[in-house]
């Protein structure tokens, strides 16, 4: 009973302080919205309208048809026509185009002759995304690149709808982004929680009261669980309204998964807070967790493609498991029961980190 009263005292104090801390309060709402907009609009792997010039030296019916097909993919935006490949190179060099298409005068023959590339794509390789797109263009039914002989059948008319206008990045990104946003804000909130008290001198007062380590930890975590849930609702709303991201599975399952994930991150933050001496150190440590949570969690790069050691590291991160949960629940309509392993890991992680934090936090100054 007394214990509950003390937890409640810490909880109320946290809420009061948070309410007066405009910057942090702004972070609760502002950070998720800002990140959603940034990632949703700016990170777009469907590259379209690359500036392209054509040097059509064949100028046959077939070559003109090819150019038309190319334009219809919307990947390229034909901005000009020149006579020679050298002119294409000049345009590439001065940056006025990203892709140059050289169609040799024997284009018609090359298309039939499978041993030689029918046309050449001159690509600005300084941007890896553009290079990637150009490589994907090779999948068009022409043997384009000079290097490899065309392997595709000479289907001139039919262009595969590789860049389907319906293929939208946000649908893939938002479920993972939820994890990244929550990782960033949740860890940061609690990472500074104890250190801040230490820096402001409040800790000496707190540890002289009858409040126990565990009560202090719980009182500090509970308000942020609610804030995490609020952020989740916000992210889902923005995802829905602006990017039309669906939640195909159960929304209750999604919240249960988020609860486990938020608890894990808050506990990790508290653990950081007991290790850091200053708020700045706490933030540095947060970045230390955040970066792998973005890069190794499967959010940016496919998990299966990573080296084994990176996969092990990734498996340890809460975000990896949460992203599996959100992608499963939101996109594949999986239920939380089917994904019990990931939920279990998150809950276990939260318990271990919380216990670790409570044990590490001694009510002494030395």
């Amino acid at each position, binding site marked *: 009973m007394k214990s509950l*009263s003390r937890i409640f005292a810490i909880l109320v*104090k946290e809420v009061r*302080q948070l309410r007066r801390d405009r910057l942090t309060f702004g972070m609760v709402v502002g950070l998720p919205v800002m990140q959603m907009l940034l990632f949703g609009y700016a990170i777009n792997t469907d590259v379209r309208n690359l500036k392209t010039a054509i040097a059509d030296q064949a100028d046959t019916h077939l070559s003109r048809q090819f150019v038309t097909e190319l334009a219809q993919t919307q990947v390229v935006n034909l901005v000009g026509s020149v006579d020679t490949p050298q002119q294409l190179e000049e345009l590439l060099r001065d940056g006025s185009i990203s892709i140059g298409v050289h169609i040799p005068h024997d284009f018609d023959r090359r298309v039939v002759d499978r041993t030689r590339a029918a046309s050449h794509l001159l690509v600005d390789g300084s941007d890896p995304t553009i290079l990637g797109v150009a490589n994907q263009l090779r999948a068009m039914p022409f043997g384009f690149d000079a290097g490899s002989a065309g392997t595709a059948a000479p289907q001139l008319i039919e262009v595969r709808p590789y860049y389907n206008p319906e293929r939208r990045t946000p649908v893939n990104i938002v479920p993972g982004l939820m994890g990244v946003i929550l990782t960033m804000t949740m860890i940061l909130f609690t990472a500074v929680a104890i250190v801040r008290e230490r820096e402001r001198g409040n800790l000496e*007062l707190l540890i*002289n*009261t*009858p409040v126990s380590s565990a009560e202090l930890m719980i009182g500090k975590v509970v308000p942020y669980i609610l804030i995490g849930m609020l952020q989740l609702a916000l992210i889902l709303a923005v995802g829905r309204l602006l990017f039309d991201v669906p939640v195909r599975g159960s929304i209750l399952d999604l919240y249960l998964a988020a609860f486990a994930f938020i608890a894990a991150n808050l506990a990790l933050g508290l653990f950081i807070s007991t290790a850091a001496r200053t708020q700045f150190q706490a933030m540095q440590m947060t970045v230390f967790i955040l970066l792998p949570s973005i890069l190794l969690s499967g959010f940016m790069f496919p998990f299966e493609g990573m080296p084994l050691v990176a996969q092990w590291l990734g498996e340890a991160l809460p975000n990896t498991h949460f992203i599996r949960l959100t992608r499963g629940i939101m996109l594949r309509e999986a239920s939380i029961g089917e994904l019990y392993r990931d939920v279990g890991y998150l809950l276990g992680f939260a318990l271990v980190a919380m216990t670790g934090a409570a044990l590490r936090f001694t009510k002494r100054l030395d």
Partner: protein
Amino acid sequence: MSPEFAIQARGLTKRFGDLIAVSQLDLDVPRGEIYGFLGPNGSGKSTTIRMLCGLLMPSDGNAFVLDTEVPGDARLLKPRIGYMTQKFSLFGDMTVYENLQFIAEIYSYPRRDRSTRIEELLERYNLGDQRKQLAGTLSGGQKQRLALACAVLHRPELLLLDEPTSAVDPQSRRDFWAALFRLAEAGTTILVSTHYMDEAERCHRLAILDRGVKVADGTPTELQENTGMHVVEVTAANPYHAQVVIATIPDVASVTQLGVRLRVLIPGAHDDPTGIVDAALRSAGLDARATLSSATLEDVFVAVTLKPRRQAA
């Protein structure tokens, strides 16, 4: 362990690496008294107080606080002691009232009496008008009163105050001490550290600490009567020159200037303390007069903190 002492410590020692912050401290603080720790910065006052409330682990020795061994079961002790930190440690981004409320909750003060108790404290410590003000925006004196109100809210038997008046003006200090006397009269034992002589003089009993060592303790009167030093007061037209001259006398332990007067300490074994000072002043041709005086607490402080320095040199 005697019930008449709120604090008893034997051989209490704290080392931070090579530094000995507190060395072999014996302490007996009678219940219901105001006990002072007098000493300069770095003399081990804060470290001792922190060991007594269980914030620091003693390197050696033991201490009983309210019959409880520290740092044994500090949890049982916490509700019975109040602690006021040297640096303001309440929440600057919460109001005066919210801070008091928080303390009441964290000490599980009976719910139905909470608001009565808070009102009582606001009234007694003259914070009624500031109840809705953020604690961080209070003046030094107000912060100090709030800190005291929070330290005594749960009616502790023992109050530990770490340099409570170091950041406030003289009027606030006077008011603060009036409040302390009131608490002591109501039966609270108070341990207060200070580096002000006038505050030390108000304590029932005090210990003088110097570089981690207790160099003297007793009531202020006892200390003044047992300095083991003669105090010679010199009134001089040119006190600075007189000081230089007196400092060269081999028997003089110390000379301190107070305005136009000089306080000269000469070991008690000496037969004619005024004589040697007068002789030295005359032979230097200075217009000055030496008279025997009784020791003030400041003289005591100078006398007891002097000895180890001499030995060291």
